[in-house]
C-alpha cells in the first residue's frame, strides 16, 4: 500500500471537518474580484496593453495558398524592400527547434518543406504596421507543388474495419496517418450480442466546432537584455507557452517570462495556439530588438487554431427485454486535421467515456484519430466527451424505443451507482461521490418529464413539442495524460491584505474566484481582503495547465493546503495573544477571538503584526498532486480518472415541421459536482455550457471545401448562438455527493457543462418528430429532409 501524502490527508481532513457545516463563503453568490473593472471597460486584455507601448513592430503570418503542397522555395526579396518591412522570418531563421507540436512533435512553427493545411505558416513578416505587412505579403513568391487534398477522414480509414486505406500520406515521415488507437475490451461481446433480446446500431456524425472566444489570440513580446523575452499572452497555459518559446528561441526556460492578463474566453482553444503566437512574437522581438505584437484577425483565428474533433462512429448496443445493457460496441474515428495537437489525449478521453455512465456486462471499443488536410483539431471544452455522449445517448433512446420503454426508465435501470464498476473495472465508492441517480431524478421532477413525454407523444399540427434526456459522466482533471499537479500561494501582507497567486488562469468563468473562496473559508477572512494576481511565470511555480476542469479540483486542493498551513500559524500567534488554546481560535476578520470566551478578542491586523514581530512567516505555498491513474493499453481496464462529475440534461424543444427550424424552449441541467464552491461560476458554467452546446447541436460547423479551404471563417458565416437562440429558460440544479479528495468535496464542471446538451436536444427533436436523427449540427435542412424522407410531411 502506498503511503498517502500529507497534501492528500489535509484535503481529506478539511472535507471531513466541514461536512454538513454552514459555510461563510463557499457555495454562496459572491461577486467575482474583477467584476467592476470589467463592467467599467477597464480590465486589460492583451491587445489593450498596446496603448502603453511605443516603438513596437507587428508580426504578420504568411500562410500557405494550398492546403497540401510541397514548398519548393520562398522568395521574399521583394517583400523585404517594401517600405516599412523590417524583416522576413522563415524556418531557417529559427535559432532553436522549429516545432510547436503539443503531444507529438509533428507541427513546425514555420513550414519548411510541406504545407498540410490552409493555416500553415510559411513566413513571418515583421513590419512597422499591420497594413504594410499585409501589402508586403503580396510580394512574396512561393513555389508550390500541389498535392492531393484529403478532407474526409474516411478516405484515410475504413469505419467498419478501422484499417488504413491506400491514400497519399499527409505525414509520410510517420509512415501512417493514423495517430492513435485506444481500446476497451471487457467480457464476451459476441456472445452478449447473440444472446440479447434487442440490438440497436447506428452511425453518428459530429462536426468541427469552433471556440469563437470573443477575444482573438494575441501576444506582445518584449526582448530582454539576456536574450530572453517577456510575453503578455492570451493563453490558458503560461507554462506551456514558456516551454515552447524557450525551445524555439533555444534559451533556457528561466529566460522566458509569460504574464497572462484578462483573457476573453478560451474554452480549450487557447492552449497550443498561444504557444504558436508566443513563439512568433518572441522571434520577432529577439530578431529586431523591439517589442513585437502578434494579433490574429478573426479569420486567422478561425483557420489557424485547433477545433473540436469531428467524429464518425459506428455503435451497437445489446440489451435484454427488460432493458438491462449487455454489450456496447463502437468504432470511433476522430479527424485531428493536419496536426495531432491534443488529439491523442482527446481520443483517449473519448474512449474512456465511450460507453456513457452505464453498467455494461461487455464492451468492445476501438478509437482511432487520423490526419487529414483539415484545420487541426485539439482541445475544446468536453475534450472528446460531447462526441461520444452524442452517439451513446442517441443509442440509448433508440434502445428505449425498440424496447417500448421510457428513456428515463431505461437509463435508471443501467446508470452507475455507488458500488458499481465502470466499464474500465473501476469501483465507484462513497469517496468518489456518485450522484448520478439523484441528478437524474431531480431533473425529471423539475421537468415534469413523464407528464410532458406523454403529452408530446400524440401531437399533430405544424409546431410540435418534444422533450429529451441525456446523461453524462466526465473524468476529473487529466488522468493518465500526464503528471497531474497544481499549486497556489497565499501571502498575508503587513496591512492584513492578502495576495493570491497561482499559475492557473481565469479564461472568463471565474475559476480563480473559487480558489479565493476556499482560502477565505479556511482562513476566516472575507474574499474582499484578497487580490488575485494575474498568472506570471516569474512569480509563481508551475501549477499545470488551465484545462480539463481542473482549476477548482486541483488548484482548489492546493489552495486548501496553503490555507490550512497558514491558518495553523495564525492560530498559534492568536493563541499567544489571547491565551486560549490554538484549537479555540476563531478568525472572523477583522475580529479574532476565543471560541469558548468571545470576550477574549483581538483584531486580524494585530495577529498579522504580531506574526511579523514573532518571526512567523505569513506566506504559504500549497501543492497538490492527484493519485496516479491506471490504464491498460490493451484492455482499457484500470482507474482512468480519480473521480467523475455526473450530469443529467433535459431539453424541451418546439419543431416547426414546415421549415425544420428548432427552437429550444428550456434546458434543465442537473450536475453532481461534489460540492458547489463558487456558486456564481457554477451557474454561469451551466448556462454557458448549455448555450454553447445548443450551438453544437443545431448550428455550428466549420466547413472545408474540397481544396481544404475553410468556407466559413468568420462570425457571419459560422453561426454561434445569439440572444435570439438562447433558450427561454435554463434551470441549474445541483447535487453534492462530495468527493473526499476534492476541496470541500468539489469536482470539476467546466467541461462537463457541454457534454450532454446536444444529445438531449436531438433526442427532444426526435421525440417531437418521430424521426431518428444521427448527425449534428441538426440544421433546419437536416430536420426537414428527415421529415420528408420519413414521409412525415407532404409536399
Amino acid at each position, binding site marked *: 500500500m502506498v503511503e498517502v501524502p500529507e497534501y492528500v490527508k489535509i484535503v481529506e481532513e478539511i472535507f471531513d471537518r466541514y461536512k454538513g457545516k454552514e459555510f461563510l463563503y463557499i457555495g454562496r453568490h459572491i461577486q467575482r474580484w474583477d467584476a467592476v473593472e470589467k463592467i467599467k471597460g477597464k480590465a486589460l486584455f492583451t491587445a489593450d496593453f498596446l496603448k502603453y507601448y511605443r516603438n513596437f513592430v507587428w508580426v504578420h503570418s504568411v500562410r500557405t495558398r494550398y492546403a497540401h503542397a510541397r514548398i519548393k522555395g520562398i522568395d521574399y526579396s521583394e517583400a523585404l524592400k517594401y517600405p516599412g518591412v523590417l524583416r522576413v522570418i522563415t524556418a531557417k531563421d529559427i535559432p532553436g527547434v522549429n516545432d510547436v507540436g503539443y503531444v507529438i512533435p509533428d507541427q513546425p512553427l514555420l513550414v519548411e518543406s510541406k504545407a498540410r493545411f490552409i493555416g500553415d505558416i510559411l513566413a513571418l513578416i515583421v513590419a512597422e504596421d499591420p497594413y504594410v505587412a499585409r501589402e508586403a505579403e503580396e510580394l512574396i513568391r512561393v513555389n508550390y507543388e500541389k498535392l492531393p487534398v484529403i478532407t474526409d477522414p474516411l478516405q484515410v480509414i475504413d469505419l467498419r474495419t478501422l484499417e488504413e486505406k491506400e491514400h497519399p500520406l499527409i505525414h509520410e515521415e510517420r509512415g501512417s496517418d493514423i495517430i492513435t488507437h485506444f481500446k476497451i475490451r471487457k467480457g464476451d461481446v459476441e456472445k452478449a450480442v447473440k444472446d440479447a433480446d434487442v440490438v440497436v446500431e447506428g452511425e453518428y456524425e459530429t462536426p468541427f466546432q469552433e471556440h469563437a472566444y470573443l*477575444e482573438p489570440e494575441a501576444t506582445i513580446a518584449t526582448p530582454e537584455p539576456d536574450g530572453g523575452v517577456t510575453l503578455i499572452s492570451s493563453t490558458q497555459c503560461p507554462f506551456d507557452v514558456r516551454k515552447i518559446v524557450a525551445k524555439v528561441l533555444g534559451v533556457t526556460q528561466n529566460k522566458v517570462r509569460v504574464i497572462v492578463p484578462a483573457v476573453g474566453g478560451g474554452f480549450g482553444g487557447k492552449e497550443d495556439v498561444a504557444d504558436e503566437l508566443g513563439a512568433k512574437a518572441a522571434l520577432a522581438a529577439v530578431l529586431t530588438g523591439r517589442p513585437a505584437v502578434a494579433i490574429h484577425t478573426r479569420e486567422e483565428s478561425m483557420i489557424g487554431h485547433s477545433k473540436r474533433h469531428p467524429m464518425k462512429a459506428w455503435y451497437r448496443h445489446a440489451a435484454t427485454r427488460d432493458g438491462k445493457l449487455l454489450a456496447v460496441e463502437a468504432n470511433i474515428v476522430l479527424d485531428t486535421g493536419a496536426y495531432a495537437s491534443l488529439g491523442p489525449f482527446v481520443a483517449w478521453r473519448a474512449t474512456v467515456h465511450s460507453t456513457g455512465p452505464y453498467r455494461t456486462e461487455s464492451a468492445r471499443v476501438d478509437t482511432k484519430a487520423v490526419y487529414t488536410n483539415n484545420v487541426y483539431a485539439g482541445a475544446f471544452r468536453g475534450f472528446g466527451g460531447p462526441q461520444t455522449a452524442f452517439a451513446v445517448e442517441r443509442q440509448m433512446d433508440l434502445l428505449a424505443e425498440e424496447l417500448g420503454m421510457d428513456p428515463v426508465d431505461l437509463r435508471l435501470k443501467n446508470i452507475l451507482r455507488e458500488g458499481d464498476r465502470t466499464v474500465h473495472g473501476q469501483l465507484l465508492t462513497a469517496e468518489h461521490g456518485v450522484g448520478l441517480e439523484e441528478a437524474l431524478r431531480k431533473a425529471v421532477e423539475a421537468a415534469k418529464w413523464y407528464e410532458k413525454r406523454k403529452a408530446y407523444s400524440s401531437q399533430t399540427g405544424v409546431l410540435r413539442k418534444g422533450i429529451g434526456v441525456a446523461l453524462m459522466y466526465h473524468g476529473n482533471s487529466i488522468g493518465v495524460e500526464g503528471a497531474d499537479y497544481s499549486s497556489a500561494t497565499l501571502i498575508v501582507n503587513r496591512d492584513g491584505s492578502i495576495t493570491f497567486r497561482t499559475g492557473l488562469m481565469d479564461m472568463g468563468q471565474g475559476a480563480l474566484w473559487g480558489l479565493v473562496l476556499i482560502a477565505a473559508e479556511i482562513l476566516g477572512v472575507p474574499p474582499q481582503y484578497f487580490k488575485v494576481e494575474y498568472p506570471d511565470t516569474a512569480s509563481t511555480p508551475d501549477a499545470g495547465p488551465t484545462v480539463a476542469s481542473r482549476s477548482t479540483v486541483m488548484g482548489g486542493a492546493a489552495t486548501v493546503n496553503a490555507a490550512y498551513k497558514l491558518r495553523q500559524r495564525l492560530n498559534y500567534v492568536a493563541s499567544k495573544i489571547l491565551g486560549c488554546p490554538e484549537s479555540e481560535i476563531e478568525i472572523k476578520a477583522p475580529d479574532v477571538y476565543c471560541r469558548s470566551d468571545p470576550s477574549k478578542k483581538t483584531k486580524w491586523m494585530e495577529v498579522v503584526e504580531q506574526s511579523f514581530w514573532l518571526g512567523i512567516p505569513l506566506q504559504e505555498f500549497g501543492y497538490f498532486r492527484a493519485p496516479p491513474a491506471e490504464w491498460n493499453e490493451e484492455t482499457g481496464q484500470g482507474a482512468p480518472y480519480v473521480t467523475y462529475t455526473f450530469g443529467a440534461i433535459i431539453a424541451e424543444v418546439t419543431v416547426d415541421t414546415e421549415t425544420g427550424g428548432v427552437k429550444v424552449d428550456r434546458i434543465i441541467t442537473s450536475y453532481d459536482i461534489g460540492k458547489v464552491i463558487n456558486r456564481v461560476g457554477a451557474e454561469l458554467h451551466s448556462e454557458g455550457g448549455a448555450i454553447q452546446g445548443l450551438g453544437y447541436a443545431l448550428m455550428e460547423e466549420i466547413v472545408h471545401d474540397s481544396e481544404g479551404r475553410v468556407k466559413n471563417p468568420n462570425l457571419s458565416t459560422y453561426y454561434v448562438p445569439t440572444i435570439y437562440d438562447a433558450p427561454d429558460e435554463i434551470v441549474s440544479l445541483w447535487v453534492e455527493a462530495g468527493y473526499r479528495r476534492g476541496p470541500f468535496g468539489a469536482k470539476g464542471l467546466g467541461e462537463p457543462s457541454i457534454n450532454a446538451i446536444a444529445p438531449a436536444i436531438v433526442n427532444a427533436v426526435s421525440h417531437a418528430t418521430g424521426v431518428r436523427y444521427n448527425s449534428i449540427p441538426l440544421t433546419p435542412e437536416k430536420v426537414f429532409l428527415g421529415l420528408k424522407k420519413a414521409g412525415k410531411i407532404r409536399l
Partner: protein
Amino acid sequence: MEIVPREEWDNYPDIEIKLNVNGKDYKVKVKPYERLLDVLRYKLGLTGPKEGCGRGECGACSVIMDGKVVPSCLVLAVRADGSKILTVEGLAPEGKIHAIQKALLDTFAVQCGYCFPGFEMAIKALLDRTLDPTDEEIKEALSGNICRCGSYKRFMKAVKLAAKYIKEGKVYFDEEEVRR
C-alpha cells in the same frame, strides 16, 4: 473626394478630425484608412471598445455615435469627424457606476467581460429609446452582440433591472458602495 493611390498614403498628410468622446473634445490626426476603433483605442487610450471580428459581426467594438449604436471597426475615423461619441468609459463619471452596470453586477452576468463594453452600449441605446422594453425589443437591441460565455439570460434580466433603476431616478451608484 480626391482618390489617393495606396503607395502614396504614407506621404499623404494626416487628416485632422474633431471628435467629442465621452463629453471631451479632441483633435486627432488620422490616416485616411484608420478605423474609428483604432483611434479610440490607441490614440485616445480608450481600450473599452474591443476588436472581436473587425467586420461588424460581434458587437464587441460598439460605441454610440450621434445617438446610434455603430460597430467602430467599420467606421473610418474620417467619417466620424465632428461626431459625438460615447464609449463604455463615458457611461458613468469617475467613481460612479451606471444603472446598466449596476444591473449587470446584480444579475452576476460578468464572465470574461470582453463583450461587455459593446453590450452596455447596445443596452444604453435601447434604454434611451424606452424604459419599458419588451422581451422582443431587448432581443432585437442585443442581437448584434455576441457573448460566447453565454450570459444572455442574465442580460435579459439586467436590462429590465436597469430600466427599473433609471425609472426610480437611480442612474448612478457610488462605486465604493457597490464594491463593498
